[in-house]
Structure formats: C-alpha cells, structure tokens
C-alpha cells in the first residue's frame, strides 16, 4: 500500500506513548533536526504499520522518534530530532 495512505497523526501513537510517559504526549513539542520546525507531537505524521512506530516531521519527513517493543523492553530513539519537551505530569 502507498506510504501516504498509511500516514496517521501523532494522536494515533498517544496510547503507546502513554505506556511510558505519565504526561499527555500529543501536546509535547518536538524539534526537527532536518528543518528546525517545532510542532506538537499530535501534529506530526505517524506510521504505525512498521515493526515499530515511527513519528516523522510533518514539514520535511525526517524520522523524529522511533519506538519498538521486544520481549517486554521498550526502546525509544530520536534519529533526527533535537529535543522533546513536555509539561508537568498532570492530567489536563
């Protein structure tokens, strides 16, 4: 299937992020190393059909955040993002 048809929003990975972070993560902001844009996670593009989850920049398509889970271990890495910034861990 075409990659574009599989594109979702960062909203789609909020549940998985919620397994690891106590903050609501779609409002966390992430800075792209490729183009410098800063957007809420919810506004970026998400691909969930891969073996892991990939969050890509909605402006330049760089891979901002990748998550995998194997044998009960979560791994998150940040191939092309400068930082991920989130608020206090309160229920908003």
């Amino acid at each position, binding site marked *: 299937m075409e990659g574009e048809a599989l594109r979702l929003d960062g909203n789609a990975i909020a549940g998985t992020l919620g397994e690891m972070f106590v903050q609501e993560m779609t*409002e966390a902001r992430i800075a792209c190393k490729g183009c410098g844009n800063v957007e809420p996670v919810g506004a970026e593009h998400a691909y969930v059909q891969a073996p892991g989850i990939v969050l890509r920049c909605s402006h330049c398509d760089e891979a901002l955040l990748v998550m995998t889970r194997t044998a009960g271990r979560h791994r998150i890495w940040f191939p092309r993002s400068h930082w991920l910034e989130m608020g206090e861990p309160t229920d908003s």
Partner: protein
Amino acid sequence: MARAAVRGRLNWTLGEVVELTDETPRVRTIFLEVPEWPGHRAGQHVDVRLTAEDGYQAQRSYSIASAPEDGRLAITVERLPDGEVSEYLVGELRRGDMLELRGPIGGYFVWEAGSDGPLLLVAGGSGIVPLMSMLRHRRASDGTVGARLLYSSRSWDEVIYRDELERLAAGSNGPEVIHTLTRSQPPGWKGYARRVDGAMLAEAAWATASMPMTFVCGPTSFVESVAGGLVLLGYPSNTVKTERFGPTGG
C-alpha cells in the same frame, strides 16, 4: 474539565456495554459504563483491547462520541471489511459484555467550550465521531461561539447521527450543518453532491479574519486534501488540527 491530579501511566480498565444503537447499516454506537473512568475532553479517544480464548490480543483506537458532560461513555464504530476488531464490535458485541479500555488518550485534537473563535468542523464518513463529541459538548455547555460542520458522506443513508444533527442545527445557537453526498443523493437533493474541494471550502469556511479553530477528521486522503485546501484559503496551519483515520482502522 481541568483536573490537578497526576494521571499516572495509562492503565487498562473494564467497561460494561449498557446499550447498543445502530447508526447506519455499518455503524454502531456502543454505550459503556466505566466505573473507573476519569472523564474526558471532546476529541479524545480510547483504546479497546480484545482477547481471544487462546490469548491472542488485538487493540484499536476509537474516538469518543459522547460529550464530557454525558453520563455514559460512547464510542461509534464502523464495520470495516476484514476488520478483526470492528467486525466483533459491530456484529457480535451484546449488552452486558465487558470491554477492556484504556484512556482517555490525546490532548492535541481537543476542543473546549469557551475557546475563542468560531468552530469549523470538517468530517469525512466516520470522521464525524470526535467532532460530534465537540458539538455535544458545545450544546451541553450552552456554547454560543459559532459552529459550522461540513460533513461528507457517500449517501444519505450513510450519514451517521443524521437525526441528532438535524435537531442540533434546529436548536437555538445550533451549529450550521452542511452535507455533501458523494456517491448517491436522494430525489430532490439540493445540497452538495461531490467530494469536498476548494470551492466548497471557500463557501463553507469562516472568514480567516474571524480566527476560526478548525478540526478535520476522516480518511488520510480526505484529511490531507481538506487541510491543504484550508491553508490555500489562508487558514494558518497551526489553527487546523487533523486526525487521520488511515486507510482502515481494522
């Protein structure tokens, strides 16, 4: 609806199916009593997990249809071809069954009554669900900020929440509801009869000077076409929030 308590990580909880309503031949609303439900905001979603007798698990995310003010949690599910979860939820689920749930989830695609600016909602098919939560929230809180819904369906029989939308629109301060029917139209239909395009958006959208807040929900191709069209009309991209359903939800 702000609560100060620390939420903690998302945990699974159980909800009991207390009512089922068929919205269209392929779409059903499931009403749930969830004792440990912490409340939600309009536009959020919930994960549903099914476990087979052999231990196989499947999980999907569904938009919440009910308003934060409603007593029961409601999700509206479209039966998708070969959708292992949606087939069960629409076809097999019965009153009294228990569902495993996790949520509410999300905070970006959320609208609060009392927000500034008129509201523009654009829905494709079952993309209406989170937007309906917003319209129900607006009514429950006597919202007066202008609201307009542009809703694309294949046919009149596939319009989800059709009667309730008519009632909402007829009420005082009700939203404007604009339908487009892309595949077939009833005799005498005077509304739009094509896919949402730039010309339709130009007619239906608020003037950019009124600083509208916009939420677009539907299949990926629909959402991207509408969001692109709104940006061409001069809508700042950070005021257009999108939720893509993807090709299928399963």
